[in-house]
């Protein structure tokens, strides 16, 4: 369903099988399918984790935590069952990559879950997919059933004596559930409210058992690392940032799409070369490099390598890989309002700074955008956002506050242009946006 694009600079690892019919198990087997898990069985847990560490793979959900290290936190002995949980609750605005993985290479996710389970000694894996992605839930259910039918999962996998079950689980609409502790709550049949940490999921997770939680793209990278070696994967990227990444290019670009590029690939090239630059008649105003939760970069800040460390140094975050390109015809206040409305809608209400803060930010921006703003609103908005930072159980509060602060810091003039009872000077105000 989702369209594929390609560019000569791409290095296809996770997207290697896209468009090749690999959702069919026989086809997947022709394309080296289920070889990695067999190799992993012969390697054993310690060697798998060593390879994962060597790969410098970092979590593709957004936080960028080293995957190998995360797995090493799981206790070897546990009185409670251990679990592996695949986070396929992709909902970060600007992000549409996991959709392609589930659609085009579902067995790679299953294999990733299997290898993670072998690494930590888990006997059960869950693949949680957001409820809106029903067709992908169906693809994954079919793929899991196919793998069971061949005996790849279930009892005594590949004659190893190891039993391993994998189940697909559908969500029902909630951005917040993409946060790992809220994800576990949701899987347990509850409201997706975050848990306080420590203890971390690797020690106390699903039903109190140690749990490894990885993003779908992270897990889909794992079989390739096992087959080709951690060092090979690490060398595709930059120091401390191994491998490649699916970058979701969106906005008024000539060739938007999902491209797999090496970690550290230049953002400016990603926009002007890979994605063909801005469409005719529009120019670049700013870039949100990692989903709506991260700080905006101005056109003179985008000559940066896209890995976790370099983007952080440039004042933003690599996040989810959702590169949202903002053109000169978009009003930043309108953009800020849309972002604020999103977080207000998605805040679970558990922590007061987030629940109240997102609501105030939205209300202020609604008034501001429609011409009712006063000068002190700008600083109040920034003050409000700054007081949400670090004061919530989960990162949603930060995710709501950080972008707003950056819009004000970098585009203050656009906010000032909305003062003195003037409606938006840049474009028509849409009634739909003011609810």
């Amino acid at each position, binding site marked *: 369903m989702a*369209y594929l694009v390609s560019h000569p600079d791409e290095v296809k690892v996770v997207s290697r099988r896209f468009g090749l019919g690999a959702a069919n198990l026989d086809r997947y087997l022709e394309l080296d399918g289920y070889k990695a898990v067999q190799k992993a069985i012969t390697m054993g847990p310690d060697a798998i984790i060593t390879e994962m560490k060597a790969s410098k793979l970092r979590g593709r959900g957004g936080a960028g935590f080293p995957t190998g290290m995360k797995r090493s936190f799981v206790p070897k002995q546990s009185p409670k*069952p251990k679990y592996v949980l695949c986070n396929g609750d992709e909902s970060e*605005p600007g992000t*549409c990559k996991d959709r392609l993985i589930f659609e085009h290479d579902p067995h790679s996710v299953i294999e990733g879950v299997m290898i993670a389970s072998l690494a930590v000694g888990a006997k059960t894996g869950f693949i949680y997919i957001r409820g809106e992605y029903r067709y992908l839930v169906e693809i994954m259910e079919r793929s899991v059933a196919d793998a069971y039918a061949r005996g790849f999962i279930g009892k005594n996998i590949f004659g190893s004596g190891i039993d391993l079950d994998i189940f697909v689980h*559908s969500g*029902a609409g909630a951005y917040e559930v993409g946060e790992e502790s809220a994800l576990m709550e949701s899987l347990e*049949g509850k409201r997706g409210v975050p848990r306080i940490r420590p203890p971390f999921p690797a020690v106390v997770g699903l039903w109190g058992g140690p749990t490894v939680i990885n993003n779908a793209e992270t897990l889909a990278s794992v079989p390739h690392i096992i087959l080709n070696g951690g060092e090979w994967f690490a060398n595709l990227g930059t120091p401390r940032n191994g491998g490649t990444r699916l970058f979701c290019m969106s906005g008024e670009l000539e060739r938007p799409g999902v491209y797999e590029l090496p970690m550290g690939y230049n953002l400016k090239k990603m926009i002007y070369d890979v994605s063909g630059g801005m469409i005719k008649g529009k120019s670049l105003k700013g870039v949100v490099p990692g989903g*709506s939760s991260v700080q905006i970069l101005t056109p003179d800040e985008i000559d940066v390598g896209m890995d976790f460390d370099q983007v952080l140094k440039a004042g933003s975050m690599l996040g989810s890989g959702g590169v949202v390109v903002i053109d000169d015809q978009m009003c930043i206040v309108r953009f800020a309002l*849309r972002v604020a409305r999103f977080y207000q809608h998605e805040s679970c209400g558990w922590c007061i700074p987030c629940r109240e803060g997102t609501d105030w930010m939205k209300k202020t921006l609604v008034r501001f955008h429609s011409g009712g703003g006063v000068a002190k609103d700008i600083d109040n908005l920034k003050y409000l956002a700054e007081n949400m930072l670090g004061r919530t159980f989960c990162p949603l509060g930060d995710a709501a506050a950080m972008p707003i602060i950056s819009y004000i810091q970098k585009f203050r003039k656009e906010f000032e242009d909305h003062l003195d009872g003037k409606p938006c000077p840049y474009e028509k105000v849409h009634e739909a946006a003011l609810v």
Partner: protein
Amino acid sequence: MKFSDQLEQRFAAMVTHYPTKRSVLVPMLLYIQDELGALNDEAIHEIAERTELSELEVRNVISYYSMLRTHPIGKYNLQVCTNVSCLLRGGEEILEHCQKKLGVGNKQTTADGLFHMEEVECIGACSWAPALMLNYEFHENLTPQKIDELIDGIRKKEHQ
């Protein structure tokens, strides 16, 4: 309330996947809703019994998830994304076009019960924006013309 054979099979399989019964709740509620159109009192009572929860606890969970509802809506749910990537490519204009075309506001159903329309958050179609979901079906790279064709096509099919 009696579950359909299909729901019964699903429930029987799912309940074996988890150490606690209530873990089936979120997906089961969605599957029940798909069949009934909404989670009515009988359905809530039934799932509460089966998961050994109070009805209040089930309602508490329902109220958290944006896709779950306790009242029926139109047969075709038009969910228009206006989040950032769609916004940049005319998502709000698409939303307004849908509202005008159907003659209803946000979260409203047309008088004939055919269409429901709502503005939704990011649906993961960012690189193919603007986009909407028609029930579970993605429609991407939208234009007002495509919307007209989609809606007119459904009306024609339904009125035949």
